């Protein structure tokens, strides 16, 4: 690999890293046919982890970080002084194929700054995906970050080659968008998300290929004053109305050459973590947006207890629940019990009466679950759920995930 290309790679990988998503999941399982390259596994594979603990699954790069937009939270905004570079379509294709052959990656996650026009940029992104599929028989994962301002027919075309399309909501309110991302428009973003959502549903019904791994988005957390509750309601809306696969929450992080209108401090990473937990309650635990809101204090999740525990502490009268009798949907509300543990409990109790040591084999969260459970040989005596210090006993030690 020559040094000129390596230099571009360094600049354009650095420029792409603030997008949280790197997932290669959700694509229908495929394997390479004769002479082809690549497969998808369904759940995706993380090929390496960087010292920030995040997974490298895809080659996540920008086609270029030149950009005409001026979004304050973005390191690549036109008024930033970062080093700039631009790949050719062929260069991205080569890097993807050669990295893939060495088993470094699951595929490509390509995004771009807006150059010339949104349409021009979108056409270039699509050409990369098309060349990989057509010229190289590439069957690996392709995630394209779509440009919502591009003409709708270009998004139609991108969906034919990509496994996943995503459009970043970026900021949860129109007001923040106006202030921090002057060239962006909430309605345009929403329309594009809606278009992709409709086409994915339609294509599924017609057994046609269009972004088969669905659509995802990203919201930046902490760059404006939006509460966790508002973020969760926004996500519930996105999941409900547009059938999104994932909403990613990206704690706004200090960037080189940051803008003056950003807050001085980034939010604790723990806040991002709590948002993901709240998101899971919405998607896998049968919590309504109101339930999730109920787990917050003044709209914010506590940092020292997870949202499910926060909810249970507020609704102690529902507990303790009998593991040998309670309905599945109620067991899902028990802090420390994951969805898989609940399924195992429900299955096992058809054949046996579960004692506490049995439950211990089914979950790693027994410490948190214990005060809320009744087992064959166990009852949280002395009304454990009534104890005033219960929260303190179950809270995380005050050590926060901090920047260093």
């Amino acid at each position, binding site marked *: 690999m020559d040094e000129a290309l390596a230099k571009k790679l360094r600049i354009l990988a650095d420029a792409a890293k603030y997008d949280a998503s790197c997932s290669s999941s959700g694509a229908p399982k495929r394997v390479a046919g004769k002479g082809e390259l690549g*497969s998808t596994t369904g759940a995706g594979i993380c090929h390496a982890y960087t010292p920030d603990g995040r997974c490298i699954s895809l080659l996540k790069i920008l086609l270029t970080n030149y950009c005409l937009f001026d979004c304050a939270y973005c390191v690549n905004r036109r008024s*930033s002084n970062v080093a700039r570079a631009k790949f050719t379509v062929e260069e991205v294709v080569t890097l993807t194929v050669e990295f893939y052959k060495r088993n470094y990656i699951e595929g490509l996650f390509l995004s771009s700054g807006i150059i010339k026009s949104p349409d021009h940029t979108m056409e270039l992104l699509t050409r990369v995906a098309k060349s990989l599929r057509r010229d190289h028989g590439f069957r690996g994962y392709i995630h394209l970050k779509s440009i919502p301002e591009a003409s709708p027919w270009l998004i139609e075309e991108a969906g034919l080659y990509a496994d996943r399309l995503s459009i970043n909501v970026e900021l949860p309110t129109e007001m923040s968008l106006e202030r921090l991302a002057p060239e962006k428009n909430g309605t345009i973003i929403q329309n594009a998300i809606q278009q992709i959502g409709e086409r994915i549903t339609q294509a599924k019904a017609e057994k046609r290929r269009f972004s088969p791994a669905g659509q995802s988005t990203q919201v930046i957390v902490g760059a404006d004053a939006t509460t966790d509750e508002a973020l969760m309601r926004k996500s519930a809306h996105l999941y409900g109305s547009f059938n999104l696969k994932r909403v990613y929450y990206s704690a706004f992080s200090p960037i080189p050459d940051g803008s003056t209108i950003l807050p001085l401090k980034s939010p604790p990473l723990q806040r991002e973590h709590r948002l993901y937990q709240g998101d899971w309650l919405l998607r896998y635990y049968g919590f309504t947006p109101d339930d999730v809101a109920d787990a917050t204090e003044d709209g914010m999740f506590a940092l020292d207890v997870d949202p499910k525990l926060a909810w249970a502490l507020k609704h102690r009268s529902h507990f303790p629940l009998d593991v040998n009798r309670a309905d599945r949907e109620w067991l899902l509300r028990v802090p420390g019990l994951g969805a898989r543990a609940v399924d195992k409990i429900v299955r096992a109790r058809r054949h046996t009466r579960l004692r506490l040591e049995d439950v211990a084999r089914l979950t790693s969260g027994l410490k948190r679950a214990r005060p809320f459970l009744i087992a064959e040989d166990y009852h949280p005596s002395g009304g454990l759920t009534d104890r005033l210090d219960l929260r303190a006993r179950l809270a995380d030690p005050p050590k926060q995930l901090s920047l260093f």
Partner: protein
Amino acid sequence: MESGGDLFGTGPQAVFLGPGADGTGFRAAVRRLAAAAVPPERVAWSVGEAPGLFGASAETTDAPPLALPRGVADLVARVVPHRDPERYALLYTLVWRVLHGERRLLEVSSDPLVHRLERMAKAIARDLHKMHAFLRFRRVEGAEPERFVAWFEPDHHILEAAAPFFVGRFRGLHWTILTPEGSVRWDTETLSFGPSGRREDAPPSDGFEAGWRDYYESTFNPARTNLAAMRAEMPKKYWRNMPETAAIPGLVRAAASRTETMIERAPRKAIKRDPVRAVAAMVDQAPDSLDALNAIIRRSEPLVPGATQAVLGEGRVGAAIAFVGEQPGDHEDRQGRPFVGPAGQLLSRAMAEAGIVRGDAYLTNAVKHFKFEQRGQRRIHQNPTAGEVSHYRWWLERELDFVAPRLVVALGATAVLALAGRAIPVTRARGPAEFGKGYAGFITVHPSYLLRLPHGAKDEAYAAFVADLRRVGEFATTLAA
């Protein structure tokens, strides 16, 4: 090697299995032991260390196959590659219990044995997953066709179980995977297992490793350093075979100071001038004329492959009436013009009778490419699906924006779907319609429908169609006034 011990006595039964994951031998042993009703506590399992036994089984049996629940057979297959010498004994105990009254034992995940076996299966799954993830190929320099070799050290006996993944992924490549326990080679056609290899048997470097390390370094965000999370997912034991991990110490050392610099350095004024004109030009990307739009449509590929060319709309910008049909047919596809086939000719005739001059109107289709099924020499028209109509609807919208007709006539159900955005039955909605756009609408049948009717019904239907077109003409005149 034969099994020892007295089959019907009470002494221990010895079983010898091959080294590694001897699934075949284990299955044979289980059949034999189960047929003789030997309880687990009377079996002594040992694993042979003899070289050359790779994949071979020392156990054979004539005993019939056992009918085990699918989950049990599956769990056995998943646990056999585990390196724990106790695995066979544990698995046989499971089989024994399942055969003796606990048929649904696997559903009881809280049972200590089930729990332990599930954890072993999980360890295997993780080992496989990490091998699929962390194995790195190096290209053999100068080899033609290109050939790749990897060295990997799994925790368990998983080489055979891991190989199919690499075949499915790198089917078109020649590659070899070397491990301390054996090797596997793929030549784009067949998979062959061989003796163990050494690290030195793999190429010492690869031309893309420096670039990959660059990528690894650049994608790391120093403001989020979290070493525990990294080590949990990528334990240190894997690092020596992963070229990118050489960068870790340097990245970690510099992380804190890099972040501080970012936070402390005051934002600088942009060096570049504000690209006012480029930003202004950016919003002008939409095609600015019908010709510009048509150029885009002409360039595009058909959504369903096969069509010769895109068939564009025809007529003048500013036409009072626009007719929207379904999609080009066989004749239209060859000639590149709308409504020139039999249905088009019928439409022309009806328009003339209704007093509409075809040349004054604008004619186009909801879908711009011909979709067909080839039957011998004939290309049989196929209806576009709702998805295809959606795919093309953006162009139709822009096209009508440019033409700006007073009245748009939807010919048939597909046109209605494209214009209204939802399906409306044509027979019921025939007549003036509202498409929610800046023009008036009218719904009637597609002329090809008239061609398909039986002879007796044709005349009447044609007369009704002409009557519709007459109303269209009058309607357009009213709108002009």
